[in-house]
Each structure stands twice: as C-alpha cells, then as structure tokens.
C-alpha cells in the first residue's frame, strides 16, 4: 500500500491560466485520439466491416458509371472523380453517429466520469471530435488502398496526403459535433438514430461527392454551397487527383464550421448530462 500515490495538498490545486487551459485542451485531444487508436487496435474487424459500404460504392457504382459515361467529369475518369467523394462519405458516416456514442456514454456513467476530471467542456468535445477524425483517417487508409487497387491515379505528393488527413480531421470534427449537438437536443439514442439516418443521405446527395456541381439543379447548388461536406470533397479531390480546388476557401470553411460546431456542441453538453 505504501506505493500508492499520495494526495497533493489542496493548495496545489490551482486553476490554470488561459495558456494552461489551451495546453490542457491539446493534451486532452491527444489523449482521446490515443484512446481511439487503442480501441481500433483491439477491434480491427470494425475497419473491415465499415469498409464494405465504400467498397460497394467504388466497385459497383463507380465502375458501372465509369463504363456508361453517364456523369460527365471531363478528362477525369469517373472512378477517380468518385473516390474522394466516397472517402468523405465514409468519414461522414463514422462521425455522424458519435452522438449515439455520447448518449451511450451518458447512460453508462462514462460522461459523468469524464466531466469530473479537470477537463474543460470544450476541450472534451474537441477531443471527441478529433477522435472521430482519427477513426475516419484509419478508415480512409482502407478506402484509399482499395482505390489504388482499382487503378485510381492518386497524387504521390506527401504534402497532399497531409492535406487529406487535415481535411478528414476537420470534416469529421464538424459532423461529429453536429451529431453531439443533435444528441444534446433530442437526448435519446432512438431519436438520434432516426435523425442521423434522415440527414446523412441528404447531406451526401446534396454535395459534390457523386457528381459535379454544374450538373445540379439550381436549388441543389444552393444547398451544396452551404454543405461543409462539399468543401471537404473539393479539397480531397483537389489534393488526391488534382482537379481544380479552392483549397484556401475549402480549409477555411472546414475550420470555421468545425470551430462553430464544437462551440455549439460544448454549450449543449450540460443539458446532455442533466437529461
């Protein structure tokens, strides 16, 4: 028993300043990302099962539409055009159900336990958001390997790949926090499941993931312009297969959208705990 850590005196429990809070937030993000990787290491089968749907999109939808030339994508083969869209879709599907996880964590007492640690609410939500991103990036490796096998011409530039990781992290952070926000409003897993399913496909179809923006009807183009998934796809497509992209705009939108949604989700966390 003598080896047990001894409690510090109460006087040592000082509040950190703003810089200390920022450093705490960075450490919490790193911790939650590490835990997400540990979970993945223990259960690798999830990487495979989650790869089935994107694989079907690439293998069936991508190859068929490439052959029939139904969707004009200029000089870019349709499968190449589609691969970044499916990558973003795969990340979206992972992140959008993190709200269900947080409701499970509330019911299982995990959320309470996390909130009794010296972790600011916003740091906890940010950490969850980037943990979703880590899982999305791990999934992206599988999808991109499949794309390579199917002959998609991906950029060999490591900086482009770094950009892909950042885009996936930011996109996943946004959709994870959107999901946590909805969880904070509806407070039940069943309702969140329904809403998650109801919004995921519209988000996907109202983006440039499957077809170029120019082919969309006017009303859909308007939705596309306010859909963060479109900016994520545009960035991924520009980085991976070299199509024209407004990378500064794409990353700015993703960063702002993620920051805004982290703020909103954090403000709803107390309601989630009380609910």
């Amino acid at each position, binding site marked *: 028993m003598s080896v047990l*850590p001894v409690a510090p005196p109460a006087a040592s429990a000082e509040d950190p300043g703003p810089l200390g809070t920022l450093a705490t937030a960075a450490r919490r993000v790193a911790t939650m990302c590490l835990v997400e990787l*540990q979970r993945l290491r223990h259960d690798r089968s999830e990487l495979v099962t989650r790869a089935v749907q994107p694989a079907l999109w690439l293998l069936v939808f991508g190859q068929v539409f490439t052959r029939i030339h139904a969707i004009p994508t200029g000089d870019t083969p349709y499968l190449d055009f589609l691969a970044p869209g499916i990558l973003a879709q795969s990340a979206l599907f992972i992140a959008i159900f993190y709200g269900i996880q947080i409701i499970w964590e509330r019911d299982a007492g995990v959320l309470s336990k996390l909130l009794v640690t010296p972790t600011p609410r916003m740091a906890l939500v940010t950490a969850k958001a980037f943990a979703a991103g880590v899982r999305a990036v791990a999934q992206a490796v599988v999808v991109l390997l499949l794309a390579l096998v199917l002959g998609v011409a991906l950029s060999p530039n490591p900086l482009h790949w770094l950009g892909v990781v950042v885009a996936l992290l930011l996109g996943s952070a946004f959709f994870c926090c959107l999901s946590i926000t909805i969880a904070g409003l509806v407070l039940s897993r069943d309702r969140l499941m329904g809403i998650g399913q109801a919004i995921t496909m519209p988000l996907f179809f109202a983006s440039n993931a499957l077809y170029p923006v120019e082919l969309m009807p006017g009303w859909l183009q308007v939705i596309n312009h306010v859909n963060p998934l479109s900016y994520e796809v545009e960035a991924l497509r520009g980085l991976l297969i070299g199509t024209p992209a407004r990378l500064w705009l794409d990353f700015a939108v993703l960063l702002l959208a993620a920051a805004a949604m982290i703020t909103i989700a954090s403000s709803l966390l107390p309601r989630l705990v009380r609910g």
Partner: protein
Amino acid sequence: MTAIGAGPPADVPAVRCTGLRQAFGDTVAVDGIDLEVRPGEVFGLLGPNGAGKTTTIRMITTLLPAPPGAIEVFGIDVARRRSAVRRLLGYVPQQLSADGTLSGRENVALFARLFDVPRRDRDAQVDAVLTAVDLLDVADRQVKTYSGGMVRRLELAQALVSAPRVLVLDEPTVGLDPVARDGVWDRITDIRLATGMTVLVTTHAMQEADAQCDRIALMHRGRVQALGTPADLRGALGPDATLDDVFRHHTGDTLADRSGGLRDVRAARRTAGRLG
C-alpha cells in the same frame, strides 16, 4: 473504523454543504442540506431512490451547478473553482463505466492522463493502483473479460490514480454478489488506511453502511433526516434497533411510492445486467 468524535475535528472539512438546494422544475430534489464531511472519514449518504442523494453527489462533483458558497471541498468553493475541485476528487458513478474494449491498464492510464499525472510517474502510478485493487495480473486483458467485481475494482483504480483527497462513490456495490461486495470494500478500507483519503458514499445497503461508514446522513425528500454514527442512530431508536429500523423510521410509509423513476430503475437494471 474510526467512531464519531474519536479524533479532533480538522479545521477544514473535506466537504461542506451549506443550505444546499436544487430543484428541477417544480420538483425540489435537494431542499436545504447542511453537511460537513470530516477529512479521512467514510461518510455515507443513505436514503430511498429520489431522496436527493445522487443530486447532492452530482452537485459536489460539479456535474450540476451549485450556487456560490453552497459547497466547499477542502475549503475550495465548487461554484467558483470547478477545475481545482475536480483535481481533488475521484469519482465512481453508479453505472459500470469502464471501457470494455480497452485493457484494464489502458482504462487506468486514460484517467492518469486526464488528471495530468506527469509522464515520468504515470506507469508507476498506474501499476500502484492496479496492485492496490488486486488487478495487476490481469491488467493487460480486455475489460470485457472481467467479472463485475473486477470491473468495480478497476473503476476504483481509475478514480484513485490521480491521488484524490476525496473518493466519491455512488452506489459502489449495486448488483454485486456478497463476495465481490466484500472485495470492493476491503480494497476501499486498505486504500483509505494507506492514504488517509476521505470517502463519500451513497448506498441503499443498510448492513454495508453500518459496517463501513464512520458517519451517516439519512436523507429523505431532499432533506437530511438524521445524522450521526451508525451506533448513535441505532441507539436513538432503541437498544435492539438496526439501521433498517432507523431507515424505516425516518422514511416512513412512503417508501414504496418513492422507489425512484423509470430512469433510476432502468439504470440499476442495466448495471446489474452488465455485472451478470
């Protein structure tokens, strides 16, 4: 076990609640509680479901807002310095909250990181608490292979890895068989003797409270109905009275109507189900 009044009262209480109140809409969950938990004692909050125990615990642990001055932990105002108070607390919720996907060691290391245990001390500290709860041998196994009692002990280790000054346990033995229950309490007693830490516990189990708590506050309808050592409380009712009798005496005939909401029952069943 230290009896009430056996030692001199410390200057600063481990926990002090002054006129604590919490209402949810028209329902008053906690109705003006005054409490002092002394450093180093095991203090039990007893009462039927809906008595206000969990609400009180949630306010002390910063999970629910408290007005300034209403709660102090070692002299620190919970309302003003939440983060500082959290550094003094180790919390084990009623539900089974360990991550079944991770190993025991990873579960404890997570909380070492969340409490900013320095990297150079982290491994040793994780090993020390795993040893203290008798789980070092199985520390690298996934938690989903643990028994209910092992999970509870692991959660103790998670709460202890930051060397808290107050260990807060919300129904720590609910759903456990008697052997596992004793195992959990044996570890709590050993750790308390080794560290001098204060333990604040809620429970329904009268025998457990009688055997383990230095002092008890019996709550009913959001108020403290009786406060003292188990012996004092029993003695006040009669020479042969048990703590069960004390409980019935103070909670009256309304016990059946106050057996908690659907969510309480669901949570208890879920915990019992996961414990197997």
